[in-house]
C-alpha cells in the first residue's frame, strides 16, 4: 500500500519532466507547426551549459537555468533564421532538415565534450529527500515539479497578458491577417522559436538532476515530448499540461503493475487509441482557417 501511494508523487514527477521537455515544443511545433527534431539537442545544450558552469560559484546550478535559456534560445534563433524560415509550409522537409541538424549537433557535442557522459554535481540542498506520511519525496523531484509549474505559469502569463504573446497568438491563428494588421510575422516567428528553444535549455538543466548528461541525451526525450504535444492538441498550453499529467500517471502506474518495457508499449497503444477518437488531441484551437 505504501508503494502504491508512493506512485502518486512519482506520477507527478514523471509528468513534470514530460511537461518541461514538451513546453518548448508547444511553441515551435504547436504554434508554428515546425516539426523540430533538434528540440532534444537544445535540451542537451542546456544540460551541457549546467556542466560548464558548475564549480564557478556555489549557486551555479540556479545560475545555469537562465544561462541555458539564453544559450539554447540563441541556438534556436540561429536555426530558425538560417534554415527553418526557408522551409515554412513544408513540414516533411523541415522534419528531415531538423533531424539532420540534430545529428550534427550530437556529433558536435561528442567532438567537444567527448563521447562518455559527463558529471553534473547536484547542489547539496537537492540531495536526499523527505518522508511525508510514509511517502518518499526526493528533493530533486520536488525541484523539477516546482520548476515545471513556474515555467507553465510564465508561459501562460506571456501568452495571455503580454503584447508579444498576443501577437504570437494572432500570427498562429491567422498569419495573413496578422501581417496585414501590421505585425511583423517574421520577427514574431523568430522570437517564438527563441522562446521554445530556450525552454528546452531550461529543461536540460533540470534533467541533469535525474538523468545522464551525454551527446545522445536529446534522443531519450524527443519522442516523449512530441507525444505530449500531439496528445494535448497542437498549440494548447492546457492541453500540454493535461497530457503530461495523464501520461505521467499512466506511465507510473502501468510500470508499477507491469514492467518498464510493457508500460511503454501500453502507453503508446493508449495514445494511438486516443488519437483515433480525437485526432486533434485533447483541446483544439477554434478558428476559421482550414489547417
Amino acid at each position, binding site marked *: 500500500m505504501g508503494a502504491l501511494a*508512493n506512485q502518486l508523487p512519482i506520477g507527478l514527477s514523471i509528468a513534470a519532466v514530460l511537461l518541461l521537455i514538451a513546453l518548448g515544443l508547444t511553441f515551435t511545433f504547436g504554434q508554428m507547426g515546425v516539426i523540430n527534431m533538434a528540440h532534444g539537442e537544445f535540451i542537451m545544450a542546456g544540460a551541457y551549459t549546467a556542466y560548464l558552469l558548475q564549480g564557478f560559484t556555489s549557486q551555479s546550478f540556479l545560475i545555469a537555468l537562465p544561462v541555458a535559456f539564453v544559450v539554447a534560445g540563441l541556438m534556436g534563433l540561429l536555426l530558425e533564421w538560417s534554415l527553418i524560415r526557408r522551409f515554412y509550409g513544408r513540414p516533411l522537409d523541415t522534419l528531415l532538415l531538423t533531424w539532420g541538424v540534430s545529428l550534427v549537433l550530437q556529433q558536435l557535442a561528442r567532438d567537444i565534450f567527448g*563521447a*562518455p*557522459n559527463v558529471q553534473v554535481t547536484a547542489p547539496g540542498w537537492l540531495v536526499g529527500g523527505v518522508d511525508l506520511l510514509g511517502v518518499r519525496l526526493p528533493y530533486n523531484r520536488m525541484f523539477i515539479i516546482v520548476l515545471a509549474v513556474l515555467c507553465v505559469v510564465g508561459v501562460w502569463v506571456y501568452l495571455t497578458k503580454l503584447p508579444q504573446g498576443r501577437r504570437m497568438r494572432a500570427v498562429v491563428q491567422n498569419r495573413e491577417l496578422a501581417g496585414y494588421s501590421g505585425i511583423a510575422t517574421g520577427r514574431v516567428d523568430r522570437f517564438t522559436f527563441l522562446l521554445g528553444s530556450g525552454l528546452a535549455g531550461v529543461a536540460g538543466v533540470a534533467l541533469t538532476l535525474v538523468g545522464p548528461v551525454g551527446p545522445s541525451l536529446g534522443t531519450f526525450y524527443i519522442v516523449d515530448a512530441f507525444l505530449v504535444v500531439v496528445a494535448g492538441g497542437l498549440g494548447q498550453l492546457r492541453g500540454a499540461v493535461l497530457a503530461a499529467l495523464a501520461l505521467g500517471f499512466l506511465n507510473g502506474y502501468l510500470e508499477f503493475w507491469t514492467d*518498464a518495457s510493457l508500460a511503454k508499449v501500453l502507453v503508446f497503444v493508449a495514445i494511438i487509441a486516443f488519437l483515433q477518437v480525437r485526432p486533434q488531441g485533447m483541446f483544439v484551437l477554434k478558428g476559421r482557417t482550414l489547417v
Partner: protein
Amino acid sequence: MRPRTLKRGLIALLLPALLATACVDDPSSNAGASGDDIKVGILHSLSGTMAISEVTVRDAELLAIEEINAKGGVLGKKLVPVTEDGASDWPTFAEKAQKLISQDKVATVFGGWTSASRKAMLPVFERNKALLWYPVQYEGLESSPYIFYTGATTNQQIVPALDYLAAQGKKKMFLVGSDYVFPRTANKIIKAYAAAKGIEIAGEEYTPLGHTEYSTLVNKIADAKPDAVFNTLNGDSNVAFFKQLRGSGITPQTTPVVSVSVAEEEVKGIGPENVAGHLVAWNYYQTTTTPANDAFVKAFKAKYGADKVTSDPMEAGYNAVYLWAAAVAKAGTVEVEAVKKAAGGISIEAPEGTTTIDGENQHVAKTARIGLVQADGQIKEVWSSPGPIKPDPYLKSYDWAGGLS
C-alpha cells in the same frame, strides 16, 4: 530537365560506382598483410547510446597498436588500424564487419560491446572464416570458433559476485537489467544459482536500453526491501538509475547494488557521489597493482589526457591486441587458422595479471575481483579470487547450472 541538371545527375549516379570499383580493385589484397603493413579492423560504436562505453575501448586498442608498432610491429610489419563505427545499431555491426573483412581485407577485427552486436557479427565472421576479438564481459553460453573472448564469462564475474554476496549473508536479491540478451541470460544464471543456494529473488525488472525514468523501479525496490540489488543495466541508463536511487533513501549500507557493467568510466559519468559505497564486479580496476598496469595507466593518460581513467573492458581490449600479436608471432603468419591454432596457451603479463588463452573455448583465464566504489571515482578491491579462474562459458563444472545450456 535542363542539360546542366542532367550532367549533375549523371555525375551523382556515377560517383559512388566509381568509388566502389576503386575500393574493390585493390591489387595488394591478400589476407590483411600487404607489403610492410598489416591491416587490423576496429569496430565499436562511436555514436549512439553505446558510444559512452565503446569509444574508450577503441582508445585502448589504438594505444596497444601504437605500442606494438613502436616496438617494431608484428612479424616485422607495422599494424595499420582501420576504424569503423557500429553506431549502436546491431545490423550496422554486421554490415561493417563484412566491409572490414571483404573490402579492407583486415587480418583480424577487435570490436563489439553489447551481446546483441556480437550476436549480429558472429555469423559474418563464421561465414568468412575471419577472426573477431570481443573485449567485454558477457553472459557466456557461447563459444564460436571464430571469436576470441578476452572479457570475463559468467564463471569469472557473475558467479564469483554471487559467491561474495552469499558469503556476506545476503539472502534476498532484486534483479535489475536492460532489456536485451546479456541481462536476461545473466539473470537466468543468477536465478538458477539462487534456487540452488536458497537465496530469494524479490523481483526481476527490465527496462529498454536508453531508459531514463527509474523512479517507479526504485519504488519497487524500496517496497521489496532486498538485501542487495544485482544490476545488469547497460549504457546511459545507469546514470539515471543511480541518480534516482540516491534520492529515494535506499543507501549502500542497507541495500548495496552490485553492478557488472559499471566501471571507472561509467562512475565518472554517473557522478562518484551518486554511486560511492556500492559494489562492482570485474577482473581489473585502475587501482589493480601490477607492474604492467602501472605502465598501462601511465601510457593511457599520456596519450589521452591526465583526467582519463582506465577500466576493465578497456584493459580487455588492450589485452586482445597483445594476445593476437603474440599468437601471430608464434604462428609466423596472420592466416586465421594458423593464428587460432597458435593461440591456445598463449600467456601475457597483462595489467590485470597473468592472462592465458584457453585453446579449447577461446576464452581467457582471469582473476575475479569485487570492488567498492570510492568517493573519488576510483574502485577499491575488497575481494579477489585466489588466482586466475579457468573460463567455463557453459558452466559445465557447476552442478546447479545443469538446465541452463
